[in-house]
């Protein structure tokens, strides 16, 4: 019997090796798999390349992972926020690398990686510093930049419902990078709010088919980053 359910976030992330490339879902706090990230902090894997839209807030979740010194490089579209001090300080100190990628290019690169497309062309960044050094090509008189697909060793994603096959739904705008990150990772690890039996998700409404998912762990009352930050919580 196929059963992708694991018992705890700790078990779910236990094999993430030093030096891994890890996609981490979320746009700001929406969809941020905070319990999986905390498990990764406990686990201690270091020298990670993390691909995530932001760099976290306060000293919990993604910001805490970065503060713990486990991240060598961030691939990211928006690494600052009103409540984000960890990444800026390390970056200014030259202690963390940054690959800045426009948000839509980041999404498309991840989708391409999951879809077996090694590279594609986009108009985004043409004529800007972010296009420097990249291959350009003209189609129908318009210039485009070539961007590469992104594949990763792991993805950490937050979803809403999950079944033993790994089929998933999401909650509202927490969907964001989840589906494409699951597809681009060798091992997609997903925390769900609720576990359901097969058939508990309408096959018409499955957002991520289980084929893209390796492990599902139930986290019924996931923390919200903003709440933890407001409470002054730091992790660990």
């Amino acid at each position, binding site marked *: 019997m196929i059963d992708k359910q694991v018992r705890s976030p700790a078990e779910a992330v236990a094999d993430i090796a030093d030096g891994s490339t890890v996609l981490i879902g979320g*746009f*700001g*706090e*929406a*969809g941020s798999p905070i319990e999986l990230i905390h498990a990764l902090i406990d686990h201690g894997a270091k020298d990670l390349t993390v691909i995530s*839209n932001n760099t976290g807030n306060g000293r919990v979740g993604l910001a805490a992972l970065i503060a713990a010194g486990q991240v060598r490089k961030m691939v990211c*579209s*928006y*690494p*600052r*926020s009103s409540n984000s001090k960890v*990444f*800026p300080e390390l*970056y*200014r100190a030259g202690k963390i690398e*940054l690959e*800045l*990628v*426009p*948000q*839509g*290019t*980041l*999404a*498309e690169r*991840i*989708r391409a990686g999951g879809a077996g497309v090694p590279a594609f062309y*986009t*108009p*985004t*960044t*043409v*004529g*800007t*510093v*972010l296009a420097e050094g990249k291959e350009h090509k003209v189609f129908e008189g318009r210039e485009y930049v070539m961007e590469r697909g992104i594949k990763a060793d792991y993805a950490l994603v937050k979803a809403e419902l999950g079944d033993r096959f790994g089929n998933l739904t*999401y*909650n*509202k*705008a*927490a*969907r*964001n*990078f*989840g*589906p*494409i990150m699951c597809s681009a990772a060798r091992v997609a690890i997903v925390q769900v709010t609720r576990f359901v039996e097969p058939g508990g998700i309408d096959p018409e409404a499955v*957002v991520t088919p289980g084929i893209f998912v390796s492990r599902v762990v139930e986290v019924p009352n996931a923390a*919200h*980053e*903003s*709440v933890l930050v407001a409470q002054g919580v730091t992790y660990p």
Partner: protein
Amino acid sequence: MTVSTAIVGLSREQMARRAAQDIPDGAYVNLGIGIPELVAGFIPAGREVIYHTENGILGFGPPPPPGEEDPELINAGKKPVTIKPGSAFFHHADSFAMIRGGHIDFCILGAMQVAQNGDLANWLTNAPDAIPAVGGAMDLVMGAGNIVVVTEHVTREGAPKLVEKCTYPLTGLGVVTRIFTNLAVIDVTKAGFVLREIAPGVDVETLKSLTGAPLAVADDLKTVSV
């Protein structure tokens, strides 16, 4: 202090109200962070507009009442929103397919600088300790159907934001079609900036002195109506 009195011009809300008048009925609209966000509150009666946000919602509505915020129902500015009947959620690749694929009709953004050829700089200063952060701005300016800017006419330090050539790193080349400032409505044409409307109490010569590039004046120059 007559100069600073003269250059107050429109309030943020008035700028948003004026920009809103340009949005056609039925448009799919993406609003940037800051003053552009205010535009949604001023759509003229009788028009129905559908808002898109990069993080994966089409058809969202105004912020919820205090206490009813949902941390997983936010816009691209990471502020709480609501949804209206007929809305849809989708993932980031689909969301930017809407943008890059030309499906967004109208996009209103803030600006640090706009050049007379429509070049836009709105993501990074030249400050040596600036943390580069681009978000979806470059995707929006290259993909959306019509890019307009809402911005103060000059910086807090009084420097022009409408310039001959951007000195900050560019967001996109030749993308801006119209600029709504606290002082004027200015079109970006092949011949450069053209003043279409001027704020009440502002005179053309003052405006020219606050603009960092040649400013042609439309034959039918109007006063901004807000």
